[in-house]
């Protein structure tokens, strides 16, 4: 069971208190009715699912109830950072440089690749 730090409660709590809520930083267009079919399809269905670092949403559902964002390595399950909803995307290179851990130093280079920029992001 993972320990996850909630950026609102500012402490680590067991995974049981949380629920994953999918990829982070998907932008709901405004006005959404004007979005093209391709862009809307990308927003609705296309996900990165990277091997390595990914931006994802979590909800501290059995705690404070807040949604927040996290950067997690999908290979090692290690969280690099968590941050509040609405805060900008952290810089992956800086994070990796700041906190090397045994798993990360051992990780294959391609596993460290940051997710590609998403179509839906404008």
């Amino acid at each position, binding site marked *: *069971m*993972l*320990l996850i730090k909630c950026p609102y409660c500012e402490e680590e709590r067991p995974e049981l208190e949380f*629920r994953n*809520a999918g990829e982070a930083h998907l932008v*709901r*267009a*405004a*006005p*959404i*009715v004007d*979005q093209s*079919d391709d862009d*809307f399809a990308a*927003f*609705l269905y296309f996900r990165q699912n990277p091997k390595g670092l990914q931006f994802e*949403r979590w*909800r501290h*559902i059995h705690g404070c*109830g*807040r*949604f927040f964002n996290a950067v997690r390595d999908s290979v*090692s*399950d290690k969280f690099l950072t968590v941050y509040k*909803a*609405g805060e900008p995307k952290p810089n992956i290179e800086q994070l990796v440089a700041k906190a090397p851990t*045994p*798993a990360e130093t*051992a990780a294959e280079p391609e596993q460290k690749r940051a997710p590609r920029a998403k179509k839906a992001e404008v």
Partner: protein
Amino acid sequence: MSTANHSGSNRIAGAGRLTPAKTVRFTFDGQNLTGLEGDTLASALLANGIHLVGRSFKYHRPRGILSAGSEEPNALVDVERDKSRKQPNVRATVQEIYDGLKVKSQNRWPSLTFDVGAINDVFSPMLPAGFYYKTFMWPKFAWKTIYEPKIRAAAGLGVVPGEPDTDRYTNRFAHCDVLVVGAGAAGLAAALSAANCGAKVILCDEQTEAGGALRYESDVTIDGVPGYEWASATVARLRSMDNVTVLTRTTAFGYYAQNFVGLAERISDHLSTPGADMPRERLWQVRARKVVLATGAIERHMVFANNDRPGIMLASAARMFLNHYGVAIGRKVGVYTANDSAYAAAIDLKRAGVDVPVIVDTRDNPTSPIVEEARSLGIDVLTGHAVYSAGGKRRVSSMLIKPNRGGNERKVSVDALIVSAGWTPSVHLFSQSRGKVAWDAANERFLPGTYAQDCVSVGACNGTDRLQDVLDEAVSSGSASAGEAGFAKGNAGSLTATGGTSWIAGMIGSAPGAGADTTVKAFVDFQNDVTAKDVRLAVHEGMHSIEHVKRFTTTGMATDQGKTSNLHGLAIAAEALNRPIPAVGLTTFRAPFTPVTFGTIVNHARHDLFDPTRRTPMHAWHAAQGAAFEDVGQWKRAWYYPQAGEDMHAAVNRECVAVRNQAGIFDASTLGKIEVVGPDAARFLELLYTNPWEKLGIGRLRYGIMLREDGFIYDDGVVGRLAEDRFHVTTTTGGAPRVMNHMEDYLQTEFPHLNVWLTSTTEQWAVIAVQGPKAREIIAPLVEGIDMSNEAMRHMSVREGKICGVPTRLFRMSFTGETGYEINVPADYGQAVWEAIHERGKPLGLTPYGTEAMHILRAEKGYIIVGQDTDGTVTPQDAGLTWAIGKNKADYVGIRGLLRRDLVADGRKQLVGLKTVDPKVVLEEGAQIVANPNQPVPMTMIGHVTSSYWSENCGRSIALALVVDGTRRLGETLHVPMPNGVIEVEVTGTVFFDEKGERLNG
């Protein structure tokens, strides 16, 4: 050799640490035997001269005891306390004996000494690896019906108990600074060193007592005292420290993310009469800042012909049985080794008075002084020799010895044979932690390589050889771990060791005489009956990765997970492939390290505690009325209320008719309820529902539809406006939690600018629906402060007031098509108000109705149930709910999804009614619909039945269905092919009763 016969003829007086006076009686296959307190089943059986304890999995070959620990592949038995507390596949080397212990051997019929299944051994040339895959392929159906059941019955290990387990299991969460796994010399030293720094330490060991190899190493001292004494004193010291928890009989079985380690503690399996309040096992879920792995190493057997005969045993096991349990495994014990450590066992046996005629060493020139020591005791040491086969069947009787460079063979008779091919470091937990092992070519072993978590390996599992080095490494790792966990390094001190035998080097793979040019039965994996020949055959048949070899031969896949066999199998495969071992690869170790009972994992989550049961405030009343209940998610809902002599059909028909003719009372408390409050509440609902809300008047209700972003229906429910800034939202029973989550998600992340608060009030309100022409007449006298006249309180309105003196939110609404009310009262008053209304309405014909009648009544009106008439691919237009979409709205969740090409295209399935041509026929829900029943199979299906009932009110069956272009097919005849014939149906509108809806406004 003197013996102490009362606890077994092979017990040596003066040897071992058990107390001769403390005898324990037990039975093995019905035979009464006596052992000593502290014995394992294995040591007690050996003391009584019993080596044959089981039959093998596939060939039913006689098998004995290989080891003295949890790696045991052979000696699996069935232990039975009573019918419900019976466990198969218990390792005799782990089970401690107690007075009255009842043990049975497994996988034999009719008896252990005469086993019919042993015929498989005779036919074994016809049963090579992969035999089952290749042989039982035809005819296809026979695998499931004939082959698999027969093979499963013939093979297999123990038999599972037939009754539910009555034992109790418990669990505990623990946090510590340093978790030390393994309490041998390394683990004890590391734990003490960490504890001395002030760190909170948990030390666990799977064995009965701490000490590890110190329990049998007779030639070792630490700090001037014999190793075992040092271990006992150290454990006592650790136990006396407040910051240390010592857990014996506790297996660290799984190493999960972020230093989360699962321990299984066996609490009462060794007790004759466990206290009634005593759990059988305890699951520990430990979160450690640092983990010190001191898991030791496991000795390997030699791979040679008939190496599985009972009486052939690992050298370290023989030493343990002698030095700890005082048991000689035989009177004339041969030795076959490829390293030094077996010499120590031979010397101990010889000194205890056991005849040790010969040590056969595959090495040409072993140089260790221990070789000379053995010779000096008069043991014949044959270097550069190998044992080509073992004689005997139910017990080894001889060893056939040949020089490696050719020459005369000779046969030495023995009654036991100890073997050692070398030691395999236990990197299981390290590997489970996602660490990567590295191949140590010089010593042919895998060692911890790249670490993935905050852990460190010390001692034998780290490849460290000399005891002094092990202790130095453990002491410094212990204090370093405490230091990294935030404790100042205390004075770690140091420990001084003498004695001990080197245990590195040895051999892996098949021994001389069992090589590629032979067809002998030299076992690699005892438990799954895999021989060296089988591994080579797998390679020959094209399995080139160890993963494939493993699955083809099943080597390493038994309950012991190949603890003694994996490296042998890998080496043989690598040799056959002519590739280096690291290139062939090692399979990943997975949890659990040793089998863990289901009871421990399931723990308290059984019976009532398996899943929460939710009951409404009026549950007791329904139960007292004899209601049948149905499970709806976690809720128990009253399904129908049968009266004397009624079956379900009769009860439901009566309930449905009563609602339409007089009135019915229904428990709707399970509906999800969310209070939406704040200055932007209406704007928020505008965004979450398709409907317009800004202009909904205070005191009015509206039916709302919630979509997902893709445009499909997610939920529905009635929403009431209680104030400018306050809405009472209802959801479907099953949808309540996810709707709340969906709303929170949008409020927090997409529309955070809105000032709105959401509160789940599902369990705060009891909801009593009173429906039918007499509904108002029944409740009006009980209501205070609300004008209930038809003019003042129209259909789809809400008022706050009192009922029976209790605050209420009174909804005038209907899910039946009748004039009706849904009375919300605080949950604690639910049953009292329900009873008062029932009392008042009874003389007027008020009838309780359950969820079945509710379903039928709403279907008669064509009201959908989300999740039954919709399935996540249905839009409001498909469901005939276009009217519920706000026409002038700029945005709501799903607005863009609804514009997608496929959602506005022709040919979508639309909700329609179906009437069977024969009104008595009730369609099956889920039945498929076709246009032309005479087309060839597979037919083109154009829809399916979503709801179908007998409607007593309509005097016929009714159904709802999703049909391609359904609304354009009104009046058409379609067909529902069923196993017993094709049913003709007419497509109709969705409303079957009171099409104009006049009854709502009565």
